[in-house]
C-alpha cells in the first residue's frame, strides 16, 4: 500500500526552480489491521507537517512515501527494504512497533541512510545497538513507565500487578516500571501480540485480582487499549485494583471509550512526554490545526511524527538541500534546530531525546470531549538508562 503525498508534487509543478531532486522521506507505519488507527494518526500528522511546511524545507522539495508494516516485523522489513532500495529515499522515519524497528534497522543503516523513530524506542537501540545514523523523536521505551513507577511510589502503592503484550516494547515497559517502583511485584502477565493479538483479558484480570495487589500497571497501545479498559470496568476492579497505565489511555482510545460511555476512565492518570495542553506556539498550532482538519485530538503518536518531519526539514534547510555530506547531515540533525511541539528538544549522546515527562489526567474539555491535561512534571531533562551502554562509532 503506497501513497505519495500530492502536496509535494503539486508544489513541484508550480515551482519554477524545480530542477533539484526532491528530498525523499520514507515513512513506515501500520496502515492495515486494527492497529491502522495509530498509523492513521501518524500519517495525518505527517500530512499536516507537510502542509505547514508548504511541501518544502527552505527551497528544497520534500516528498513523503508511506509504507505499511502490517503490524508484523517481516512485513515492516520488506517495506523498509523497498523504500531504501527501490525508492532510494534519504530518510526512513516512522515505526510504531519496537519489534518492527529492530527487524528493519539494518536495512536502513547498512545503506548509510538516516533512520528516525517517531515512536518505537527499544532498549537495544538506545544502548548497545545505538548508531550515528539513528535518531528518535519519541523516547526510550523504559522512560515513560519509569516515570509511572515514581508516581506510584509517591502515591504509596505497595504492590503492583503488571500486564503487557509479549514483544520487545512490552518487556521494556515492564522493566521500566520495575526499575523505579520500590514496592513488591505481585505478578506479571505477557500476552500474545501482533495482527492476531489476544484481546480478551478475562484470565489475566482474574489472576491480577486474586494476587491481592494494590494496583494494576498495564501497557496496551492502540485498539487493545480501549478493549482492555472496557474489560477492566466490566470486571468491576476500579475500587479494589486501581489502574495505572502507559500508552493505553490516549487520544486513540478515548473517543471510543467516550462513545461507549465508560465514565470510569475520567480522572485516570498516565505518564507521557507530551500533551495537547502543553503551552507553546508550535504545539498550539499543531493541536488547533489538527483538530480543525481531522475533527479530533492528535495523539502523542501524531505529535512525535510531526516532530520527526520538522526535524528532517530543519536539517535539510540548514544544508540547503545538499545531503551528500553525511557528517554535516548528522550534525545538522543533532542540533535539532526546530520548534518542537514539546516546547524544547535536544538529543542525548545516544541520539535519543533528553526530555521532560509529565503526569497527565483524563478530563473533559470545554466542548465535552475527553482528553488529557498535565497535572505535574515527573522528570525534567530525563536521560534514558541505556545511554550509558551506547558507544557511538
Amino acid at each position, binding site marked *: 500500500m503506497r501513497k505519495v503525498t500530492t502536496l509535494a508534487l503539486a508544489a513541484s509543478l508550480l515551482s519554477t526552480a524545480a530542477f533539484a531532486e526532491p528530498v525523499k522521506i520514507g515513512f513506515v507505519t501500520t*496502515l*492495515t*489491521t*486494527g492497529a*491502522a*488507527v495509530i*498509523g*492513521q494518526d501518524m500519517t495525518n500528522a505527517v500530512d499536516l507537517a507537510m502542509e505547514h511546511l508548504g511541501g518544502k524545507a527552505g527551497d528544497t522539495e520534500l516528498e513523503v512515501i508511506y509504507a505499511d508494516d502490517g503490524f508484523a516485523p517481516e512485513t515492516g522489513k520488506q517495506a523498509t527494504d523497498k523504500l531504501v532500495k527501490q525508492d532510494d529515499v534519504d530518510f526512513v522515519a516512522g515505526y510504531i512497533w519496537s519489534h518492527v524497528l529492530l527487524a528493519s534497522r539494518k536495512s536502513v543503516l547498512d545503506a548509510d541512510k538516516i533512520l528516525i523513530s517517531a515512536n518505537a524506542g527499544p532498549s537495544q537501540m538506545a544502548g548497545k545497538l545505538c548508531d550515528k545514523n539513528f535518531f528518535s523523536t519519541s523516547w526510550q521505551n523504559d522512560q515513560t513507565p519509569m516515570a509511572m513507577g515514581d508516581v506510584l511510589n509517591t502515591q504509596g502503592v505497595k504492590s503492583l500487578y503488571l500486564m503487557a503484550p*509479549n514483544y520487545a516494547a512490552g518487556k521494556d515497559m515492564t522493566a521500566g516500571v520495575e526499575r523505579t517502583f520500590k514496592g513488591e511485584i505481585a505478578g*506479571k*502477565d*505477557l*500476552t*500474545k501480540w501482533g*495482527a*492476531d*493479538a489476544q*484481546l*480478551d483479558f*478475562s*484470565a*489475566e484480570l*482474574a*489472576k491480577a485480582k*486474586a494476587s491481592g495487589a494494590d494496583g494494576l500497571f498495564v501497557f496496551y497501545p492502540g*485498539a487493545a487499549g*480501549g*478493549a482492555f479498559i*472496557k*474489560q477492566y*470496568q*466490566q*470486571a*468491576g476492579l476500579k475500587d479494589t485494583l486501581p489502574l495505572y497505565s502507559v500508552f493505553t489511555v490516549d487520544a*486513540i482510545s478515548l*473517543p*471510543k*471509550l467516550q*462513545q*461507549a*460511555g465508560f465514565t470510569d476512565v475520567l480522572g485516570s492518570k498516565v505518564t507521557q512526554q507530551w500533551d495537547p495542553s502543553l503551552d507553546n506556539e508550535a504545539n498550539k498550532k499543531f493541536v488547533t490545526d489538527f483538530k480543525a482538519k481531522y475533527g479530533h485530538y492528535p495523539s502523542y503518536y501524531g505529535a512525535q511524527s510531526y516532530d520527526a518531519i520538522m526535524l528532517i526539514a530543519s536539517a535539510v534547510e540548514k544544508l540547503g538541500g545538499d545531503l551528500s555530506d553525511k557528517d554535516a547531515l548528522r550534525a545538522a540533525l543533532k542540533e535539532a534546530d526546530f520548534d518542537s511541539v514539546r516546547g524544547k528538544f535536544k538529543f542525548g549522546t545516544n541520539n535519543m531525546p533528553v526530555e521532560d515527562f509529565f503526569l497527565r489526567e483524563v478530563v473533559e474539555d470545554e466542548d465535552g470531549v475527553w482528553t488529557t491535561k498535565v497535572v505535574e512534571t515527573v522528570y525534567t531533562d530525563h536521560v534514558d538508562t541505556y545511554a550509558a551502554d551506547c558507544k557511538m562509532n
Partner: protein
Amino acid sequence: MDTSLLVIQTLNGLQLGLLLFLVASGLTLVFGILDFVNLAHGSLYMLGAFFCATLTIWFGSFILALLISLPITALVGYLVERFVARPLYSRDHLDHVLATFGLILVIDTLTHMIWGPEGLAVPLPDWLRGQVTLWGDTVVPTFRLMIIGAGLAAAGGLFWLVNHTRLGMLIRAGASNRTMVSALGIDIEMLFGLVFALGAALAGLAGMLIAPITEANIGMGNGIIITAFVVIIVGGIGSIKGAFIAALLIGLIDTLGRSFLDDIFTLFMSPTAAENSAPAISAMLIYIIMACVLAFRPQGLFPPKVR
C-alpha cells in the same frame, strides 16, 4: 491454589470455548458437508461484530441490534455461498483456499473503507455492565455470563436443529453421503446455501457477543479462524458433537494454560525462566494438542460416521 480463582478461570475458559464452538460449528458443517474450505469464515465473524456495533449505536439497544444482525449476517453468508463458493465446489481445495483468502482481503479492506481503521466500540445497557457475585468474593462480569448463556442456548438450538428436524436430518445425511442425498431428489444447492447461511449466522453471533468486550476490529476474525480450524481438526471434520467437545476442551486448555502455567513452571524452574517461557508455551499448547490428535487419531476425536 484458591478455588475461587479456579472457578472464575473455568468460567472464562467455558466462555472462550463456547465462542469457539459458534465459529467452529459453521466451519465444520461447511467443510464436512460442502467439502469447501472457507478461510473467510472469520470475516463473517468480523462482519457480525461490525453490523451489531453499528446497529447498537443506531438503535441504542444491544439486544435489538443482535437480533437484527443475525439475519443480515446469514444473508451475507448466503451471498458468499451463491457467488464465491458455488462456482468453486468442483475445484480442488487449493482453489478454495486462494479464493477465500482473497475474500478475506476484500472484506477487510471494505470494512476499512466503510468503518475506518479504528474499529467500533459497542455500548452495553446498564444491566449488562455490572458484575454478579456467585459467592463470597467470587465475582464475574454479567456480560460474560450472558455470553455463556447465549452460547449454550445457540449450541442447544443447533443440536435440536441437527438431531430432531427434517432439515437437520438432511444436513446429517449430507455430511455422511452427499451424492446419495442429491440422488434422492433433495435440492442440494438450496441445502448448501442454507448450511452456509446458518454457519455465517453462528459465526456472526460469536462476533456480536465478543464485540462489547474486545470491540469490533478489522482482522479480528483472522485470529479466531486459526483456533477454529484447530477445533474442527481435534473434534473431527463434519461433526457438530466433536466441534462442541473440542471447542470446550481448547477453550479451557488455553485459558487455564495462560492462568496457571507460570505457577506450575515455578515448581521446577527459576521464577524468571518460568515468567519468560510460560507465555510462549501457553500460546503453543493448543497446537501441541492438535499435533497429538493428528499423530494418533488423524480422523479427529469424534468423526462423523461415513458410509
